[in-house]
């Protein structure tokens, strides 16, 4: 499903964020990417979502080589992903429900069907009773769950979560992990960047370890 071959990324200012990283991820796998800050996890996720392009190497997602994609094809590729960002990127000028409706508006789902699906997604993450609230009124854990609801509302085949448990207490982080497990059980491919040892211990997934831009470990 996802194949990275000798991927390197060097920024114009000289920072070598990734060096010769290769891996393959099958459909339905739950994979944790771990490593210290600056190891290259976020860069790798940005390359996978075609937010940036690798300096060299290739990334193939669902049989499509990202390097060969035209600029106009990238939005359609991103609709295959549910993206969960470390800073969540919630919109605070609208309600919880409207945040979840945004991906559905992008694909042009009729309003009634969109509202039904958005509420279903909020229900899955336990936020249905907060649909009218402004995201700023939510706790950190709730905001992260809202970000997950927005990421999954379009029923993507792949979830990319960059440090979803960062700045969360143990209880909230546990709740988030349970949500991810539930998606994994229904066949969603999960790629999660984290250095939360509790998660890796409890979920027993495949772990890819990055260090200073190099892939130094791949263990199940």
């Amino acid at each position, binding site marked *: 499903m996802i194949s990275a071959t000798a991927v390197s990324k060097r920024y114009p200012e000289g920072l070598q964020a990734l060096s010769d990283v290769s891996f393959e991820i099958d459909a339905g796998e739950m994979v944790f990417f771990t490593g210290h800050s600056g190891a290259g996890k976020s860069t790798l996720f940005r390359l996978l979502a075609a937010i940036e392009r690798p300096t060299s190497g290739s990334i193939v997602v669902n049989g499509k080589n990202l390097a060969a994609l035209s600029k106009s094809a990238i939005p359609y590729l*991103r609709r295959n992903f549910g993206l969960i960002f470390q800073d969540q*990127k919630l919109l605070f000028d609208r309600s919880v429900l409207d945040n979840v409706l945004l*991906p559905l*508006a992008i694909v042009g789902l*009729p309003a009634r069907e969109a509202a039904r699906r958005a509420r279903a997604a909020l229900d899955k993450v336990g936020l249905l009773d907060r649909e009218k609230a402004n995201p700023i009124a939510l706790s950190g854990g709730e905001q992260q769950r809202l970000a997950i609801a927005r990421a999954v509302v379009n029923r993507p085949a792949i979830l990319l979560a960059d440090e979803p448990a960062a700045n969360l207490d143990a209880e909230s982080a546990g709740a988030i992990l349970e949500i991810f497990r539930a998606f994994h059980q229904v066949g969603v491919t999960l790629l999660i960047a984290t250095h939360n040892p509790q998660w890796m211990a409890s979920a027993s997934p495949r772990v890819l370890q990055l260090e200073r831009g190099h892939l130094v470990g791949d263990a199940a």
Partner: protein
Amino acid sequence: MSRYLAQHLAALQGALRRIASTPLSSLLSLLVIGVALALPSAGWLIIDNLGAVTGSASGVQQISVFMTIDAGKKDIGEIESRLAAAKPGNWRFVARDEALKQLQASEGMAEIVASLPRNPLPDAFVVEPTDTEPQAMERLAKTFSGWPKVAHVQLDSAWIKRFDAFLRIGKLAVTMLASLLAGALVTVTFNTIRLQILAQAAEIEVAKLIGATDAFISRPFHYFGALQGALGGLFAALLVVLGGHLLAAPVDELIALYGGSFALHGLSAANVGALAAIGAALGWLGAQLSVAIHLRRLG
């Protein structure tokens, strides 16, 4: 309804909401756009009306063909045949006795006419040409003057030429003004959209990250620009119609003083539609320029 239409409808609703959510600034923008479109529209309307005035003011668009005093019925018949063949437009024969009676009826002329030993007026033809372009009128007058027993052909060509030149300058000035104000309208919309894009930078960034196309992101701005322009065009039409109502009575009075009968014509429904369409097109253009530049900057 297809997804494509649903997206357009949502973008239109979003644009309407945006206009309604900031009533004061929307009103000020509409005022600026309305005035910018009303000025050249009023200019065009004035020029159009002036052109029509020349057609209604007596004698202006006519050619008088005066026969020689000794011209007889046969000569008059010859001219009638030639006019019928040339088909220059409407024409009528004014017999010298009829002309004298008309002169007699004029204020203060009765005594003078009575004192004349004989009728000094010639028979004449009054031609109202179909083609009232100055050059065409000149050509006709030249033709008529070459016909037999024609003593004089009267065409106030100098006046018509001057007036035509004045109208052409007026049209040019209005075109220049319209171009400048169209540029101003595009600039106003460009800047409004720029501010909206900056205010919505976070939403645009998120939308792009989760799969929004450039068309999806720019569509609401296009609708906003076009909608604001169209409403500005309708506002301009309202201003012009109001101005026309205020001027109608004094203009009517003035034309009557010159012996004409003329009703000031205002904007037709098609004109109003054209104003709204021009406003919408200029608004769309301003939005397109702004979106193209500022979305690229947002990456």
